[in-house]
């Protein structure tokens, strides 16, 4: 965990919001746009500190709401809660396992839209919800689940490209020296 890692996560959040608004190919095919921010929150919570996770949720939520008809700030709390919950349990999670990443992404992507919709309804601005929303929720959840390991791979790749690599340990061990010949 270092500054570069945090910058990468925040940059990814910015680009994810832009992608969601500018490219609607998935929306045209499946009838719903995939939400990448929950997947990135999983990455942030497992690979960076609490400050970066908090910053990613606040910035991501504000960016998302600024380009949407959502009331400003309504997406922040659900994103933060998901990131916060994962961050508190990070020691118990097998973060390098792709299946674990998928399940966490699936859960986060399923939870965030429900919490956001509840907050919007609480605010008194009824969004467009109906039986079709169930299909949209499935698309968003599965899409987020698939996107999470991809986000991990991409962030890891950029991290390896831009960061100093840890020096590899030598295989030579002083306590296992082979003595040749006879005494």
């Amino acid at each position, binding site marked *: 965990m270092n500054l570069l890692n945090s910058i990468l996560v925040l940059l990814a959040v910015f680009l994810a919001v832009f992608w969601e608004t500018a490219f609607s190919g998935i929306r045209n095919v499946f009838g719903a746009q995939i939400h990448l921010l929950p997947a990135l929150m999983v990455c942030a919570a497992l690979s960076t500190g609490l400050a970066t996770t908090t910053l990613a949720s606040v910035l991501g939520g504000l960016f998302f709401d600024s380009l949407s008809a959502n009331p400003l700030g309504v997406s922040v709390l659900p994103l933060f809660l998901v990131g916060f919950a994962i961050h508190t349990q990070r020691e118990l999670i097998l973060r390098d396992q792709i299946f674990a990443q998928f399940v966490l992404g699936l859960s986060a992507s399923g939870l965030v839209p429900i919490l956001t919709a509840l907050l919007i309804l609480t605010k008194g601005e009824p969004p467009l919800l109906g039986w*079709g929303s169930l299909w949209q929720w499935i698309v968003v959840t599965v899409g987020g689940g698939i996107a999470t390991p991809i986000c991990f791979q991409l962030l890891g790749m950029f991290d390896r490209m831009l960061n100093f690599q840890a020096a590899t340990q030598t295989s030579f061990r002083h306590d296992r020296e082979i003595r040749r010949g006879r005494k």
Partner: protein
Amino acid sequence: MIRHEPGTPNKKLETGLMFKRKHYIALALVTVTILVILNLPSRTAARLKTAIGSIFLPLFGLASSTHRVLDKAGDAITTRSELLRQNEALRLENQQLRMQALQAQEAVRENERLRRLVGWQQQKRWNLKLARVVLRDPANWWRTVQIDRGTKDGMRVDLPVLTTNGLVGRISAVSYDRSQVVLIGDPNCKVAAQIVNSSGDMGVIGSSGPFDGSLVEMTHLSKNAALQPGQDVITSGLGGIFPEGIPIGKVVDFRQVEYGLYTEARVKLAADLSALDEVWVLFK
């Protein structure tokens, strides 16, 4: 004297407390910040939204130039025979439209002459401005788009937005160089509409389903409405936002609601809202 080595239970307890305190501080900070932002006056929140959204402006410029480059690349690989075929089709369409325009001009002149004779107020001509759609709402529960025209181009809230096929929506928020358009079918876009039939039944176009945005509900129709599938639906001019006569779509089907007190119809929109690229903003 008791010495605590690193990793002993007391040290672990201290670290645990610090860990929890840090978490509580973050949770409290975010909650307070969000409560403050959510309770901002609507004007301030709108300004803040515009300011944050403007961070993305360079990327939108980049995206539109990329689209243009891709379009040009697509044009470059079109064969000569295909271009000639398109050119011929467009030439024929142009001739037909010229003839229709001549007829329409004559009808307009006649209309103005008759209005003068009867003493009615003259109708204002539509003043249109072309705008490009730069982004779609990322949330699946709103139907809005943003266009590349703002207050610098004379945009203001509640101006109607349409395509050559029909009505698209109205402007709901404006910034210096961008405007948000709320599309028909969104819960925040209601349109006073009229069915083109003998009785001229009036109703209100409301929201669509969350999945299929091309079908919208037309409510508040009278129980005796003479509806038929395929009838045209246009704006009625009531409400003061949309001028009369803009095509909205066609009636697909209808049913009685509220124990037969009212009729509701489903309307297929004339404009394809999922493939909006360029739209016209109508200045009244």
